[in-house]
């Protein structure tokens, strides 16, 4: 057999391992019922944030995007609207993290980044909903609820991340 060998680096293995953690958390979350579609704890973001602090932005982006693709493949939602929402949320969230990581570290800890990332997630999803799924003002009613959930879960995920980082 003339199989082509793909060279993998230690970094690739690291990304794969971290993404696996994030995928596992995403799977756990998928079975938790939610009162409103879109309101979710987003515990997989703890991994993204942890990786951002420990390995830098590039690794965090890899882990986050891999998580979106793999989780949606596993849940049978690949290329469905849910997948588009997932990808849109993760992309905007990463963009915001890329900016937010430049905030002075002395004043802004992981909790700030986590809350901003959560707002990014919800904003990315709402933009896709508005542009593609429901091109209509009807969903504006839900925005305050989504924002409240983002603040709440962003705070909790941020505290967990802060704990993970300091305990290491």
């Amino acid at each position, binding site marked *: 057999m003339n199989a082509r060998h793909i060279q993998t680096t230690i970094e690739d293995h690291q990304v794969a391992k971290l993404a696996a953690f994030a995928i596992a958390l995403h799977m756990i979350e998928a079975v938790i019922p939610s009162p409103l579609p879109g309101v979710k704890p987003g515990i997989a973001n703890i991994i993204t944030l942890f990786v951002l602090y420990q390995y830098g932005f590039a690794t965090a982006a890899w882990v986050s995007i891999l998580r979106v693709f793999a989780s949606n493949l596993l849940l049978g939602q690949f290329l469905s609207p849910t997948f588009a929402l997932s990808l849109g949320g993760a992309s905007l969230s990463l963009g915001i993290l890329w900016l937010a990581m430049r905030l002075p570290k002395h*004043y802004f800890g992981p909790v700030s980044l986590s809350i901003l990332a959560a707002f990014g997630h919800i904003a990315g999803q709402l933009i896709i909903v508005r542009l593609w799924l429901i091109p209509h003002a*009807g969903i504006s009613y839900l925005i305050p609820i989504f*924002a409240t959930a983002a603040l709440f879960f962003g705070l909790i995920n941020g505290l967990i991340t802060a704990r993970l980082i300091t305990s290491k």
Partner: protein
Amino acid sequence: MCNFLRLNNPLTRYLRLGDYLLILMSIIGILWLFNNLWSNEQAAKVQIRQGETIVGTYGLNQTREIQVKGPIGTNTISISNGRARFSKSPCRNQYCIHQGWLNRAGQAAICLPNQISLELIGGTKPYDSLTY
């Protein structure tokens, strides 16, 4: 005692000055959103759309049934006592019917299969006088 609290309370342990500021600003922002998007204003008119076109805007102070044609059939929209609703729809899931009566400004109902939507408009929409 104070020392004990500081060390064990995750809020004081992991939050920095900027974090507190961000949380405070987020709360203010969310309150602003609630205030602006959850209007309790009574609606005055209903705007009906089919696809890209506005079928019409009707005052809610009347009792009336409006038929709107879409790609899969005709929807009936009822207006009465300052409220509006979808009352008949050819679609399979009937989500639009289940939304029931709408009476507040900003509320909306859509029938996606037939591309028809209702949006309630308050008396104070800024371009009101220009359009009608």
